[in-house]
């Protein structure tokens, strides 16, 4: 397969960037988009040009590093997928593929397609933890948690913090990310100690980072590689109201 690529090139956080055209040939349809980027970069290195900087780590869909906005969608056109799980057979031969970094005030570009998502770490540091000693792993059923709660907490815990929610959100809001963390911990007994403060502290940090506010558009849920549900945002809102009233 061959493609026309338009890739965002930007030297550093302060330099202006622009879309640069590349042509690539002999792409296997079984390559992931990241593997195609590898081939492109080898080609650029051979030509003594700067390779395209992009983030990647596990290449099995669980690390959430690949901060690429591909053809107008976070992680490209395939549902519930990261960029490493996006295969070239999902594109048509000869297609123009535009690849940009995730865009949000709170996700500044480091270089080319790599952005820093340290804002997420700072939000987690404000409340995405438990501070009670939970000892070693409990024996099964030693710590009774209703099945439904366990399932919902597990679903929320699937969030990999990739930032696709904020990247896809027209408001650049990180609400789905924050809600997944708050929901996960508020559903489990270990998370009860900080429950009254968690939502307040994390939302306050989210606002300070410059993320937008959720207006229930739902693009986040549609683009989330782990299919985190909007119901977590409803739960976060409940937790927030509860925290505001209770403390």
């Amino acid at each position, binding site marked *: 397969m061959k493609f026309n690529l338009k890739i965002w090139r930007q030297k550093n956080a302060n330099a202006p960037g622009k879309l640069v055209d590349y042509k690539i040939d002999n792409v296997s349809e079984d390559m992931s988009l990241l593997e195609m980027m590898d081939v492109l970069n080898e080609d650029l290195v051979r030509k003594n040009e700067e390779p395209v900087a992009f983030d990647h780590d596990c290449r099995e869909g669980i690390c959430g590093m690949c901060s690429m906005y591909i053809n107008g969608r976070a992680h490209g056109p395939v549902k519930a997928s990261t960029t490493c799980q996006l295969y070239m057979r999902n594109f048509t031969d000869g297609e123009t593929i535009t690849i940009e970094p995730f865009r949000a005030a709170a996700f500044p570009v480091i270089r080319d397609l790599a952005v820093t998502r340290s804002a997420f770490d700072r939000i987690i540091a404000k409340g995405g933890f438990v501070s009670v000693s939970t000892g070693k792993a409990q024996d099964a059923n030693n710590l009774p948690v209703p099945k439904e709660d366990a399932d919902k907490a597990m679903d929320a815990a699937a969030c990999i913090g990739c930032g696709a929610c904020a990247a896809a959100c027209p408001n650049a809001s990180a609400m789905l990310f924050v809600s997944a963390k708050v929901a996960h911990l508020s559903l489990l007994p270990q998370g009860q100690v900080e429950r009254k*403060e968690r939502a307040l502290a994390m939302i306050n940090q989210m606002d300070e980072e410059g993320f937008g506010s959720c207006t*229930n558009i739902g693009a986040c849920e549609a683009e989330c590689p782990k299919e985190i549900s909007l119901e977590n945002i*409803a*739960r976060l809102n409940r937790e*927030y109201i509860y925290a505001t009233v209770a403390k």
Partner: protein
Amino acid sequence: MQADISLSKRLTSSIGKKIVVALTGVFLSLFLIIHLMGNLQLLKNDGGEAFNHYAEFMGHNPLIQFVSKINFAFILGHAFWGIFLAFKNRAARPTLYAVNKPGANSRWASRNMALLGTIIFVFIAVHLSKFWFVFHYGDIPFAEYHDGVTGEFSRIKDYATVVDIGFEQLWIVIFYVASMFALAFHLSHGVQSAFQTLGLNNKEFAPTLRTIGTVFAYGICALFAIIPVLMYLNITL
């Protein structure tokens, strides 16, 4: 964990702001039901008697007048918080995508609530100047009614005639119907969104909520819109 976050900060945070928008929105949605019930009386073939009695009552009952002040405040509050929210959200993405396909993952109405709200705000301004202001301060004719049961005579302003004359002008009818489309789109996102914002939603309840929101939005607005059309065509029920 430090949560020394002041109450005013809690209410102006990203969630605080949308809770204010949701609560005022719920109130305004309920107001629409009351307003619609009044308007539908315009379609009665009684020379406007039912509507005139209704409007006279609404205009002079102290409780209704008190609630109407709250209503005006909520319209302004809803609009200002909403615009405030929209500007803040715009600022959260200073560099736009060169290629973006928001239509692939979300509804147009949900992304354009501020635009739809602005159209509705302009409509409300025109609407108030054409009807509400004239009802209250305009020099309008009086109608006399005789209650067959109590034998009482009453002389009240003929509000229905003001509406009738208004809806003889085609541009007002078109403007009204177009505004109702904007309101329908606004509510089609807004009603279900208010439940979500207030935390009253989950995966199981979401489809029902979407249906309720959609039926409410299009139902209310269709009924509002049909009144000027029928009056323009001189059709009564």
